[in-house]
């Protein structure tokens, strides 16, 4: 498997660390509902098929990425994007082929947990 990193370009998946479900929202710091915390800490969906997930370019630029991957075929369905304060920076290594830009609807979905506080 190869993962496109917007900073480093297309790299072998062995350089990355899996970061889990990217649809999970961390409750706000002052959230007191224990149930909300249990959801965040323990409950995951484990879908068969497309899944939005985080990957960390541990052996590369150390950026956190978000991408959509099919858990059955391991095909990456959306072009990985940076998350964090650098999320809106243009890619320094635009992909040469493969990978399609994702629609704004999905972008909305991804940016939500990022800004949640």
């Amino acid at each position, binding site marked *: 498997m190869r993962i496109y990193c917007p900073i480093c370009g297309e790299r072998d998946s062995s350089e990355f660390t899996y970061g889990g479900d990217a649809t999970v929202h961390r409750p706000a710091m002052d959230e007191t509902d224990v149930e909300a915390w249990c959801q965040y800490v323990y409950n995951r969906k484990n879908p068969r098929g497309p899944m939005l997930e985080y990957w960390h370019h541990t052996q590369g630029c150390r950026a956190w990425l978000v991408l959509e991957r099919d858990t059955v075929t391991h095909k990456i369905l959306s072009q990985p994007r940076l998350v964090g*304060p650098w*999320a809106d920076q243009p890619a320094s290594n635009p992909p040469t082929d493969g990978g399609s830009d994702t629609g704004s609807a999905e972008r909305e979905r991804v940016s939500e*947990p990022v*800004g949640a*506080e």
Partner: protein
Amino acid sequence: MSGYRLSSGGSQIDRSRRVRFSFDGRDLGGFAGDTLASALLANEQTLFGRSFKYHRPRGVLSAGAEEPSALVTMRGGARVEPNTKATMVELYEGLEAASQNRWPSLRFDVLSVNSLFGNFLTAGFYYKTFMGPTRKSWMFYEHFIRRAAGLGAGGFEADPDRYEGLHAHCDVLVVGSGPTGLMAARAAAVSGARVILAEEMAQLGGMLPNESESLDGMGAGDWAKATVAELSTYENVTLMPRTTVYGYFDDNVMAAVERVADHVPVPAENTPRQRHWTIRAKQVVIASGAIERPVVFDGNDTPGVMLSDAVRSYALRFGVAAGRKVIVFTNNDRAYHTALRLADQGMTIRALVDARWAPPQELVEALAARDIEHFPGHVVVKAEGGKALEGVHIAPYDPHTKRLKGSPRWLTTDALAVSGGWSPAIHLASHASDRPEFREDIQAFVPGAPEQAWRAAGACNGDFGLAACLAAGAEAGAAAAGDVGFGATALPLPSVEGGEPDGSAMLPLWEVPAIKGRGKKFVDLQHDVTAEDVRLAQREGFQSVEHLKRYTTLGMAADQGKTSNINGLAIMAETRGATIPEVGTTRFRPPYNPVSLGAIAGREIGAHFRPVRLTPMHDWHVAQGADMLAAGAWLRPRVYRQPGESVTDAYIRETRAVRDSVGIVDVSTLGKIDVQGPDAAEFLNRVYSNGFAKLPVGKARYGLMLREDGIVYDDGTTWRLSETQYLMTTTTANAAGVLTHLEHLLSIVWPELRVQVTSVTEQWAGMAVSGPNARRTLEAAVDDMDLSNEALPFMGVRPGHLGSIPVLIARLSFSGELAYEVYAEANYGMPVWEKVLEAGKPYGIIAYGTEALGALRIEKGHVAGPELDGRTTAADLGLGGMASRKKHYIGSMMLDREGLTDPNRLKLVGLVSLSGESIRPGSQLVEGATVATSGPSLGHVSSTTYSPALEKQVALGLVEGGLERTGHRLYAIYPLKGHRVPVEIVEPVFFDKDGSRMHV
């Protein structure tokens, strides 16, 4: 006996170059170009080995990678390699091979009595016999059974050869170099695409040298040579013979092994034995051909029973006759041509037995012209001969009732060439495809719909004719190149003259009834699975093909059932009254052929397995004779033993020296993270469970980091260097994990915080100077710093200089003594270390290792890795006060979960040995003195040491109820070693409970 070298023929061998080799210690000769199998056949060797379960004599079935029987042990000593297919071994001067699974010799094997009991060792025999009430007897018999079953034995010496791992990239990878593969490679090559052509065997060309047709006026073998020569002139083509593409992985990544030096005695200098290739291909053409399949009949495993095309291969490619008097047994047309070619080559063909009643007339006439007796509508019902085929019984056969139609007759023969049709080699394709599809006309599975960028062509796709393969290859090669973006150029196809039937005009024939009883009919020759085993499994309820496979082990041997898969499925289908597609097929998995562990490991062996991390003072430790110990990837000094000292003597001496005067220890391995930014204080306050918001500049604080679920993750001190900069230290073990954790929080959870984190572990050298004389020592070493208690109080941090070297000095204590940590830029580590040692000379300063470090911290009850085991909370560790109730931080909301507040949780305690014996880490803490009265485990021992301060054996442990049990007596038991030490529960701080020593 049987096989012999023909006086002529053998397109692959060089009769002018004789090669000496030995088999089971016998000196034999062959020719350059021979395989071990062809050379052994030429030397009248029919018997190659003994079978896996019954120790039945076995010969050679095939001439290629599908071989299930002719497995030998190659070489000897450290280069010994068991279970090697003799059909794949290229002969070389001095080759040494030995047969397997026989004792004392191949011809006389004691355990072949297993064969007499064959009816007892049916599917599931061991489970049925040794499970349930007789289970205990398995313990007794296992050793003997395991010894009796099996194949070759590996060696115990390290492999002296080198294996390499390489990567390759191409536009089009063509797997297989038969007519399909050659044309595909050519078509892709002329378009300009970068092409890799991988061929498993040493010679490119696949089965072309076996074919009767002429191509462009040349013999098929010559055409192959010419085409290979042409391909080798293309700069964009890489030819890879001796390369098995064994697996198809995600993103069109293929794994392959190139046998670089398996065909020579010892690899040449600077040459690996094998190379492991990771090939990234944009498009793949799978042209892996087809595998001929045998027919299942009584005695079909007798040495001398071979596949028809293999007999042809040995004659045409190696000039070796498989027998003096050959019988051909077929259900299709192609084997007639084999008979004719062999006869024309000078071999004696005793008869041709065809299960079909009405074969094509011209073939019948061709046989008659060569005086080959013809038995249409007949089958071979039984082969006899034991160690070598002596003859077969044939009988008339009714294909509708699948029964014999008359009494059998006996024909003498020493080689039976069997053809039951062809199965496409769909293995590689099925690694990356939907379920294979069954094709009625060829009675075989073809690749299912691709799930990756490949196309199958030729025989692998069910097109068996030569002209069809050439056309399919050309089309597939052009299409693959086209998909990558290379314009297709129409490639003229070679003109094919002659023409041989493609074998698809076949009568489905899987199994022949025995004359009487069940007979010994083998489906899977490598795992000794019989037709009766398949039926038994079905009777016992194993309906699914996946269950059948696992219960009988059919197709689970190292050959993955290349010659047995379809026969097994057909027999099962018949037993169930279903069709083969209804029964379905199991999925093939990588590797297509066994891969040596050496090839997979490559150069990542020994010291190359992972990098070793060395501290800036490493050479000094080694020069002082320290015992270096691996701590993760780091090497750390354990003790600095003096002459005559044991490890225990040494750490006790070092510990005392620190308590009495002063010592220095290398702490460069601690994780160090630079935390910078306007929001750094807020960030740390959210990350640590204790308060960090108000830590002043110039001060350090011990911090406790929890996981989101409230369990303790890591600890360390963090130093505030300026309003916006901190130096965080972590445990050695969690250095990488903590950095990732912080990056995760800053990217995903709190991207609005203006903070940057950077690992600076390797940029700093660190050393701790501890003991009552630590201040005096450092005062003598530093030039511009006041180290008095007032100027540098406990937990204070100050920059300063040792000579001209800038350092950071923090007054921290892990040992409980007056102590300082001195950090310098890594390249200055050694001079700083030496300056401190020099300054400490008047006080008898010593360097101490991790053992003394551990002893000092256990005496003080400080927790470390063994206590931060991923299950303990701050409260469990007596650090409940550090889990703030006044702020929100990672893990804060989970602290009050029932499970974490249970009063019976394991909590930190101190333990003192009451008998004076040492306490073993990992011991269980129980109440009773004997096994019968021990009762349940109440906890365990985490860290142990001899305490020089107390002159007692002490430990830290986690026990139910914790300090509520203070004063209780328990036993620390370690049943595996028979240890049982009485201990008393005490407070975890053994020494200097009020901490007065470090506050001076």
